């Protein structure tokens, strides 16, 4: 399914038709770079000076391209759908072909950048436990204090993290019971969604 672009967006992108092959390539590369790193306004004025146009025109064209590539990647558009999306822009075949080639080659990296934007919670990787009994400390001798150390290994956007927490026997038993209940709910929700799908 092609995506529809609003009139303003179409107008901004129509400037691409005025560019030669190398300038179009530069605009595309800049827009892809900006999707990942954010906008650098200085680039607009430099490019505008080179082309002898208003910096606002360059800004709109680059940001229009960013939006086009980001939206098409977000909806996972295939080659045919991407070209259909470009039809209302009235671009030349050569420009459309160039944009398609670039979209195909950069799709994976744009997709990866967009994935990073999803607010994510660290994912559980594994757990190690240890059961200690504290028998004395500097401030208190002759004590018997059971301590359960839990070392959590997590994965947060590809980065491994570790965290050591501790608990006591009664909280450990409560925690285990609560998570067992969660597991049963998760397993039953799986079977329900399997039926629904």
């Amino acid at each position, binding site marked *: 399914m092609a995506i529809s672009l609003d009139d303003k967006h179409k107008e901004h992108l129509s400037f691409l038709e005025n560019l030669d092959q190398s300038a179009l390539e530069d605009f595309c590369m800049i827009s892809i770079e900006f999707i990942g790193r954010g906008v650098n306004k200085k680039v607009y004025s430099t490019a505008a000076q080179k082309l002898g146009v208003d910096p606002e025109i360059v800004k709109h064209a680059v940001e229009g391209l960013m939006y086009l590539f980001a939206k098409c990647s*977000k909806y996972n558009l295939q080659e045919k759908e991407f070209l259909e999306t470009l039809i209302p822009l009235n671009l030349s075949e050569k420009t459309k072909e160039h944009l398609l080639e670039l979209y195909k080659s950069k799709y994976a990296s744009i997709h990866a950048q967009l994935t990073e934007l999803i607010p994510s*919670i660290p*994912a559980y990787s594994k757990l190690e436990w240890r059961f200690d009994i504290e028998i004395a400390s500097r401030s208190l001798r002759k004590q018997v204090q059971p301590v359960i*150390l*839990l070392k959590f290994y997590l994965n947060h956007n590809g980065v491994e993290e570790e965290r050591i927490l*501790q*608990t006591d026997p009664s909280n450990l038993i409560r925690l285990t019971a609560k998570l*067992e209940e969660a597991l049963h709910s998760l397993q039953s929700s*799986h079977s329900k969604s399997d039926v629904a*799908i």
Partner: protein
Amino acid sequence: MAQLSEKAAIGLAKVSALKDIAVKSITHTAFQQILDCSRILSYSEYSEFQDIERSDLEQCFLGLTSFILEVCKNDLSEDLIRCYLIEDYKWTDDRTVSFLNKLKNYKQKIRARLSCITWQHPHIIDSSWKLNINAQSQSLNAPQAECIVKLQLEDCSEKDNFSFRCDTNSLQDMVLKLKECSRSVTNYGSE
């Protein structure tokens, strides 16, 4: 028992020279002060302390609080305490018995407070969970259920609590390990 500092030992010995009413009051104040450090101690509030030199009073107080803390820290037996007070610090038998009765009331509370003076890893005191269906994202085509686990930590604000997500396999892994751990703790307790 760890030795008291010289100043504290002298202070504890000086208690024996105080009047009964002053000993009773200073002992009570020492126990109260240990349990509530935020309390501002004002000797002038006590009429029974009026005829005692301020420096002597402070030294007695230091000796008494140091002794109570050492006794509680080391969980000393009554016989040993009696021996220290009567033989080393020349306390009378009556005062020693009265001190031991007071100690009996406060000892567990003081030991509980002393046990807090330590370092520890963040302590899990509660947990909660919710199931989410990740219905749409850039990387997933089909809805996927996941469990968000939140561990509530002692003395931590809401934002510092510990959260992570699990799919069925990882939650199963965690529950298995926690059950294994719980079994070990229970078995140890019943041995």
